[in-house]
């Protein structure tokens, strides 16, 4: 699920202090605790141990975002084979989580995370080939919807009752062809 991400930058925001660095970093068994902390704060969902195990396996498709050396956000994806069982070499990429801590929003961190994923998903050497990237967004999360639309994601479906414990329980499926 994805909540709380970027809105389009307001052009009237005054000039910022320029001294800041945004960087991406690896998620490893040693700093997994930070991902757990982020998820607890960002999403109203408890992720299973399996989630964290899988994250360590996907390489460039799970990343931390650092702002001035503080860990403030992360993206975690899952690779999904199309037509499981066949020898198809096509796959989809599912964004499980993408989020940035509240005080650090609208600073381009979400964009950095998403473009990183898009870039790596479309690398020519990528195998299997990703044909699509998709995710779920709570129907009420306008901030997130606007953010993904900016990157050419489209609503392709609505899943009623997708969420169990939060309201509204419905989610849009956002997707983009690669």
């Amino acid at each position, binding site marked *: 699920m994805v909540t709380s991400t970027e809105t389009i930058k307001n052009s009237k925001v005054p000039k*910022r202090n320029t*001294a800041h660095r945004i960087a991406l970093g690896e998620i490893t068994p040693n*700093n997994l605790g930070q991902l757990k902390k982020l998820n607890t*704060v960002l999403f109203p969902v408890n992720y299973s141990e399996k989630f964290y195990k899988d994250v360590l396996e996907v390489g460039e498709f799970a990343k931390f975002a650092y702002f001035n050396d*503080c860990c403030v956000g992360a993206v975690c994806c899952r690779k999904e084979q199309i037509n499981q069982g066949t020898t198809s070499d096509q796959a989809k990429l599912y964004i499980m989580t993408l989020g940035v801590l509240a*005080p650090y929003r609208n600073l381009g961190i979400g964009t950095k995370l998403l473009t990183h994923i898009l870039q790596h998903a479309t690398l020519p050497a990528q195998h299997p080939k990703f044909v699509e990237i998709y995710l779920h967004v709570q129907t009420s999360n306008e901030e997130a919807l606007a953010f993904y639309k900016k990157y050419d994601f489209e609503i392709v479906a609505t899943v009623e009752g997708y969420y169990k414990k939060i309201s509204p329980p419905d989610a849009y499926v956002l997707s983009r062809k690669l």
Partner: protein
Amino acid sequence: MRELPSKESALFKQILKYYEYKQYKKGLKAAEQILKKFPEHGETLAMKGLFLNHMDRKEEAHEFVRKGLRSDLASHICWHVYGLLHRSDKNYGEALKCYTQALKYDKDNMQILQDYSLLQIQMRNYEAFNESRLRLLKLRHNNQRYWIGLAISYHLLENYESAEKVLKAYVDTLKEKPGPMNFEHSEMLLYHNLIIEESGKFEKALEHLESIKDDVCDRRSWKEKRAFFLLKLERYQEAEEAYGDLIADNPDCYDYYNGLLSASKINTEINTSELSSEQREKILGIWQTLTTKYPKSNLLKRLPLQYTTDERFKEEVDKYMQAALRKGVPSLFVNLKKLYVDPIKEIIVEKLVEEYLQNLKTHNTFTKSSNIDDEIEQPTAYLWTLYLLAQHYDNKRDIMKALKLIDEAIEHTPTLVELYMTKGRILKHGGNFNEAMKVMDEARELDLQDRFINSKCTKYMLRNDQPKEALKTIGLFTRGDAPDPLTDLIDMQCMWYALEEGECYRRQNNFGKALKRFHQIEKHFADITDDQFDFHTYCLRKVTLRAYLGMLRLEDQLRSHPYYFRAAQNAIEIYLYLKDNPKTVNGEESQNYDNMTEEEIKAAKKAKSKAKKAALKEAKKAPPTKEDQSKKKVQDDDPEGEKFLKVEDPLREALKFLQPLQILASQRIETHLLGFEYYIRKKKYLLALRALKRAYNIDKENPVLHVNIIQFKLEVSRLEKEDNEKREPQRDSTEYQTIFRVVNTELPTILPDNTSLKEYTEEFLARNKGSISHLLASSNALLQINPEYKQEATNILMNSIKDEFSNTRTLKHCISVYEQLKNNLDSSKAEEFKNKCKEWFPISTYFTGLDRDKNDLKIE
């Protein structure tokens, strides 16, 4: 019979070769071959023992060496071997004796002389060392190391002139000068210079330094020495240039700036607040010039904070803090804290940072500005401001305010390890070790490869009396190929852990294990002393002479190290306790149940027997597996340290720890206070008095000292009275008479004759207003003077509620006051006091009873 037939004689020579080349097995075989024919040949017997010693067969080794010596008492080889054996057992005194014997029979044997001199320097026998080195040089004067060795021996005897002469003579013997940039030669020249410097002749030292300029590799040392000598010779103009030059090399070295100030005739020894405003302006001017020259120097940004006050300081610190907060410098508070010696500066900092916080909250800038075009700060600036302010209030022990701020910071950025560490620290200061530990563990889990946070977390577990958890945690970072974490920690001489664990066991009244740890520390220090042995030859060979001298001097002061002091103080206090409570020794009643309810006692006893059973069970299962054996696990036959509890004379053990302190830490008052406790128990009254006087000269207002003086006076008066009344014939009356005479003339210098003890205490209290530790001491003293003074003693303690004591009202003091009230004075007053404490220390486990579940955690 020493002469062997020619065949065996040749074989014996071969044996000596085998030893030299460390071919111990071959050597052993050859020795046995000779012994078949000549079983009583002393030198061969001795050599056989020496080989056995190197093959880890200690007992046999001693046997054969001794046997060999018996059959050939006039053999220098036998004595030499015996000396080597003692040396390998670190029994240097005995080894020295053997060498002396060996030299009797072969006085010019180079090898023996060489070994002899090593032992002499190890034992710091400078005169004898000098004699040996002189003989060595006479025998072999074409080798550099014998010249240098002799020079060192003169240097250590402070015979600088001869030391210098030897080095000069050596240089003169060189047929050709070593090339430029020859490291060994360069070191020797710098050592020569050091000798001149230590003789106090700076003029000559400077001259010499200039003369060796082109031959010295260590340019930095050369420059530093030159600047230092110029300063010493009061050639200020040149010194200033020299230090300016050094600053250009490294603009972040504090010493160079101090040198520069001294060259500008500014006293750097005194407190900066004692400088005149004129001097201050001068200094600030210097900093300003340098800042434009070296804009990247961090030190130059900080130095002005030390030399400014009031408005100027505010300006400077404002600039300094904003830059650091913007950049995100976690250590900012540590730098600021040093400035808090000036309370006005502390107030200025607090006010500024509070303003930052408000402004950042409302419009994202540090200052209240009206300019709309101003740059706004990043979210991390707000974060670091919260962090700084939390540390500031923690330092002021405003625990609740600090907690509120750090919680806000954690909510802002919950992934930052530093925030949890500070929160843990705040909780610890608030007296809640359990919560503090939990938060540290949370921090640890954020970054599992951070050894620092892992160690911090371990320490907090020990402070929370959970040694098992602590060992598991530190075990995450000990070597994987060690048999177990504890063995590795001991091998690595990890002293902080041993100290914290020892103190943890002491708190739990597990004195055996505690003593085991403190003795372990003593062992580490003994090992460090032994380790220097190899350097006596190594440094001579490598000509690292300045470093060698430094090492010798460090070793001489080794036990003045704070770690040793802490271990020794703990060990002495425990041994004193064991002396006073001998029944503890027998184990069963070793728990201190004083502060427990009956149920708690039961539970504790039950847990103890359960733990004992479990330990036994564990020992029984776990037969040694192959893996264990390959790891060479050394079985600890006394893991509980029971042998330390069972010592016959705990006071003698205490003395072993006390003596190094008396020599090396005599400037610390605790040394003499511990000394007093020792001597009073040994009934050595004159030495006890000496300890009191030494303590008095360090700090006459020390609270513990006051109680000790009273105790001493009471005890001596009682003795004197007894002595007068009884006149026991068996008592050596004259000895006591001497003691009384000395005490009666010496004691009045610290305890005036014409005041009663009660008056003395009242005066003491009046002199030390506002201090709770002095209240405690006075109350204690009154009770000792007369148990009937209970009411007064109680009243004194209850004074601590008054506002004037708020500055010294620490958690530790308050616990002592409460326990004294509760256990010895007035339990209803104790409750009244406790209720106040709950207000002062709202999160402390001790006073609020929070976290009682802690005990459940402990018993696994």
